[in-house]
């Protein structure tokens, strides 16, 4: 008995021709790939838009209008990412035999081949990373050591870069394939076999179903249909909760009768009880909570406009402020309200939600609510407002 040689092993590894399904082919790949490319483009653009909310560069002033903008962009972010999953799997199935192409001879051909394989490995690795880390973030499971937000952002650039390289490399193939009829010329030689058209339709159907079955967390009329949405949409006062009072360590402090809202402007401090806030002129607006995890919901908020509070300490309506929470656990215990948002009449310290006294899990005694603002910056359990900070 002799040991198997490299040639023996090589003979055992399948070759691209060994995969006999005529449903595969560049005509299918290019069509699924185009849809996938659109999903990734939307996902990337909306994702970067969201990162701009979190770390806004100095040259950019984010407007409180349109009111529902972040709700739309972040909803689309999650929808396009979800839609991409079935498309990605079908696309990879359609090209799987190419994994077994034997490298060509000759140094130049080898280098080109190696570079293309590296770019495809980068594309696959980064897209898997984006879709996995994104969907796990939605359910609140972090089985890794890196920072989700920063890594999800950095790898997104790698993913979109690898995608551009891939399109650049494949452009002639894509153009030819999209111009050709989808079906294999010999598809009716085996009439019972699945055709490219049937696989293409199945991929689109799966992608659409993935959206319909999850998007109810942001599209109200889909709520009953979306059996797989992470946020069923219910909660105290008909609104889901991201961080509960118990989770933020405010269950006791938020109910303390000695609680006061402190407005601090330089060396001037005004202290207000909840009753004093309730005695001020109240305004009511319908504004969304739009979470980065892709769920969102409109609600009716009643409270004191922030600019009225600024007037109390003699500050201009468009002064930058920092609101601070009683929160002792978890991130986002404070947030900055930029002048143009502070002066918007709808930006308020909310005392009531959907006609009832604000639930403790929604930020009792008072929370911030402003139009077109990611949910994590709608600070809850506020006890301090630093004016001009």
């Amino acid at each position, binding site marked *: 008995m002799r040991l198997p040689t490299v040639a023996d092993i090589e003979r055992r590894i399948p070759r691209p021709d060994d*995969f006999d*399904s005529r449903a595969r082919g560049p005509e299918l790949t290019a069509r699924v790939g185009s849809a996938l490319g659109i999903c990734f483009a939307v996902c990337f653009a909306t994702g970067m838009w969201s990162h701009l909310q979190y770390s806004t560069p100095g040259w950019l002033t984010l407007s409180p209008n349109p009111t529902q903008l972040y709700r739309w962009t972040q909803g689309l972010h999650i929808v396009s990412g*979800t839609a991409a999953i*079935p498309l990605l*799997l*079908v696309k990879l*199935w359609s090209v799987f035999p190419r*994994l077994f192409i034997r490298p060509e001879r000759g140094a130049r051909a080898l280098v080109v081949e190696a570079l293309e394989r590296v770019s495809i490995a*980068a594309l696959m*690795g980064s897209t*898997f*990373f984006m879709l996995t*880390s994104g*969907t*796990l973030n939605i*359910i*609140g*499971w972090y089985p*890794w*050591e*890196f*920072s989700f937000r*920063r*890594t999800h*952002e*950095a*790898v997104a*650039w*790698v993913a*979109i*870069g690898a995608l*551009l*390289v*891939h*399109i*650049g*490399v494949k*452009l002639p193939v894509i153009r030819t394939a999209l111009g050709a009829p989808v079906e294999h010329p010999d598809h009716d030689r085996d009439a*019972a*076999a*699945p055709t490219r058209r*049937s*696989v293409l339709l*199945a*991929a689109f159907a*799966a*992608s659409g179903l*993935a959206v319909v*079955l999850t998007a109810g967390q942001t599209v109200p009329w889909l709520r009953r249909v979306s*059996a797989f949405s*992470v*946020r*069923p949409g*219910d909660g105290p006062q008909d609104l*889901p*909760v*991201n961080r*509960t009072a*118990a*989770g933020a360590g405010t269950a006791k402090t938020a109910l303390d009768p000695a609680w006061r809202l402190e407005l601090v402007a330089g060396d001037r401090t005004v202290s207000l009880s909840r009753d004093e806030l309730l005695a001020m002129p109240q305004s009511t607006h319908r504004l969304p909570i739009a979470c980065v995890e892709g769920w969102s919901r409109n609600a009716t908020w009643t409270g004191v406009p922030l600019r009225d509070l600024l007037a109390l300490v003699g500050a201009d309506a468009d002064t930058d402020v920092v609101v601070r929470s009683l929160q002792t656990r978890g991130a986002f215990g404070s947030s900055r309200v930029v002048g143009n948002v502070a002066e918007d009449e709808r930006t308020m310290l909310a005392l009531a939600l959907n006609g009832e006294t604000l639930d403790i899990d929604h930020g009792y005694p008072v929370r911030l609510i402003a139009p077109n603002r990611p949910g994590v910056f709608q600070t809850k359990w506020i006890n301090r407002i630093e004016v001009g900070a």
Partner: protein
Amino acid sequence: MRAVRGLLVVAGVGFGLWGLWLMRDFTREQLTSEAFWLAGGVVLHDAVLAPVVVAVGYVASRVLPAHWRSATATAFVVWGTLTVAFLPVLSGQGGKPGNDTILGKPYVLSWVVLTLVLVAYAGVGALLRRRQGRSSDMKTLHGSGS
């Protein structure tokens, strides 16, 4: 087209390098974990998922009666990809203690229903196909008889 292709590749490499630059201050521990999750998906797909799907397709194309094949393939594509897409909510992981506004649906039950619906789809598709096949057989018979 050469120029467009060149531009895409150059822009792509630039974007990728920018992504790497954003990781410049990540700790070794963070980078190791990131590398694990970057490579993990590729390995899991190429070494496990794809071969299993190829094997399933191979067996199905030889075992299933002809009229079952097409509808079963469609149902399998939808079932398989949706199952992967819904793995996070099916995993039982995640959620937040004391917060029932997240992950508050019977996901496994929904998945069983989804599976049954797709099995039914394949069954109905097979039935229709067989009927169609019979009527076209009849036509061929009559056609050749005249």
